[in-house]
């Protein structure tokens, strides 16, 4: 035990200071734990309620574990929401892929293959980050029907790709700014054109930016409600946010079904978050300009 022996105190006066520090440390961890409990409280409620029976509604049992664990709520929620979950996947996968490809190309040109006025163009794009989408929603719906754009999911894919241009350009531009210009110079010495430079120099380095942009777009498109509610008329084409809101807003839907539905609708983004949380954080900071 010698290795763990306390160092001999040099001056007695230091002692109270140390205990003061321990106290501060305990307070710190206690506060952190309190916040963990508060943040996770809704998760507890969601999980516990989703496994209760429809009849377990007595307030005295509201926070208690289920008396009889049952999957009934999950089954009903799955039955009601699975078509909408399918729609969401059909929407979010192509939209995310297209957004990332476009973002990578735009980010590359705007940082490494600049044309005169490139910075101005970027500033104009940034403005598109912040507009409240309500300001384009009425004409957008009108335009889609005027030009007979294919109804349903394709309209949403198009909208999310277009309004995703600013944020993806920002993420990729910020990332590419960290690639040394010497690499570009070297490619130029080899008389490589734009596409070859992009393909063989820039793209192989782009993986982290693709992950960050993909997580960002996946999460915000999956969680979007506004575009879907304004652009999708046919309930059979609703993504899961609209379907869930419709289901949970109905007076006949019991709490267990609502909570199971909310969990189902959140699982994909939560899984992405758990697997790639590190990049999630990075994306948030990269996109610090955007909310």
């Amino acid at each position, binding site marked *: 035990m010698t290795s763990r022996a306390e160092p001999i105190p040099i001056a007695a006066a230091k002692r109270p200071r140390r205990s003061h520090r321990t106290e501060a440390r305990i307070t710190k961890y206690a506060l952190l734990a309190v916040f963990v409990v508060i*943040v996770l409280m809704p998760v507890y*409620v969601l999980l516990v309620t989703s496994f209760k029976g429809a009849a377990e509604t007595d307030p005295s049992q509201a926070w208690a574990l289920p008396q009889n664990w049952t999957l009934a709520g999950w089954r009903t929620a799955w039955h009601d929401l699975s078509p909408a979950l399918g729609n969401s996947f059909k929407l979010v996968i192509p939209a995310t892929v297209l957004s990332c490809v476009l973002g990578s190309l735009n980010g590359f040109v705007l940082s490494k293959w600049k*044309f005169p006025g490139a910075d101005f163009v970027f500033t104009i794009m940034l403005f598109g980050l912040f507009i409240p*989408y309500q300001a384009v929603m009425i004409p957008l719906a009108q335009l889609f029907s005027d030009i007979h754009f294919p109804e349903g999911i394709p309209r949403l894919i198009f909208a999310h790709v277009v309004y995703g241009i600013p944020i993806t350009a920002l993420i990729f531009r910020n990332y590419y700014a960290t690639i040394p210009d010497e690499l570009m110079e070297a490619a130029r010495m080899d008389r490589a054109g734009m596409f070859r430079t992009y393909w063989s120099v820039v793209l192989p380095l782009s993986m982290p930016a693709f992950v960050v942009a993909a997580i960002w777009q996946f*999460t915000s498109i999956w969680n979007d409600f506004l575009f879907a509610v304004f652009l999708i008329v046919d309930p059979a084409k609703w993504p899961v946010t609209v379907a869930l809101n419709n289901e949970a807003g109905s007076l006949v839907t019991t709490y267990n079904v609502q909570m199971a539905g909310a969990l189902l*609708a959140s699982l994909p983004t939560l899984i992405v978050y758990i697997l790639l949380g590190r990049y999630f*954080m990075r994306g948030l900071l990269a996109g610090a300009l955007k909310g």
Partner: protein
Amino acid sequence: MRNVRRWGPGLLLVSPSIILILVFVFGLIGWNAKVSLSDWRTSVHSTGWAGLAAYRDLNADPAWSEDLHHILLFTATFIVGALFVGLTLAFLLEKGVRGEGFFRSIYLFPMAVSFIAAGVVWRWLMNPAPGDRSTGLNVIFEKLHVGFLGNEWYLGQNWGMSAMALPAIWALSGYIMALYLAGFRGVPEELREAARMDGASEFRVYRHVVFPYLRPVTLSAVIILGHISIKVFDLIVAIGGKQLITQTPAVYMWILIYDAQDYAKGAAIATLLLLGISVLIIPYLIFTVRSERRA
């Protein structure tokens, strides 16, 4: 301009995106403004000129003044709450604690959840129903013998919109924490050391060295939270539905379009939302781009 052959392909590659942004951001904003000045007040599409009639209607509309009152209260509570919680969390974490990664990911996870899904559980938590239909926080208060804390939450007559901000604070505090944490870590350690060498107490090190460093972070955070708040829509729909007592401008716009089919008035709200946010954003964008150029 020397070498078109060099930068030409780049411009060509970006031009579809530029055109899309010009058309679908700037073009549609103009179109929306035009709708707001038109006489399109029914389901029949109309492009006749009506001047500021829709804006005048809004101005005289008692529901609209309720909306403005609601959004002010919501925004104030949301910004103050999220800044306070976010800064507190970052402050607790900044010197490095054991399991920092764990705490960070817990605090940040609500960002990954949609307001619609969060709304489902928060509506249960903030259920104002009395008696045997009561759930959530009111039940907990009863159990802990602080039943007097039980309240009507988002349906409260005066402070309802403050309660409505609680789920938003829950959702965004982790993000604000991440911003502040990055800010804290950006303070050069030498500066703190130097202040300590000068005999400054830890409190004064924070007060005079660290916190001044965080001012730009606070500015960004206020802008980000403010622009989320002004247009808040899904959270309100998920928790309050279409009730007037929780109605915000964005919700009113939706009701006007879908239930009343008053397109001009809906477009007028959309234009006002854009103006409100632009007042916040444009100076900030100019400031950001300038400081990027300086760097």
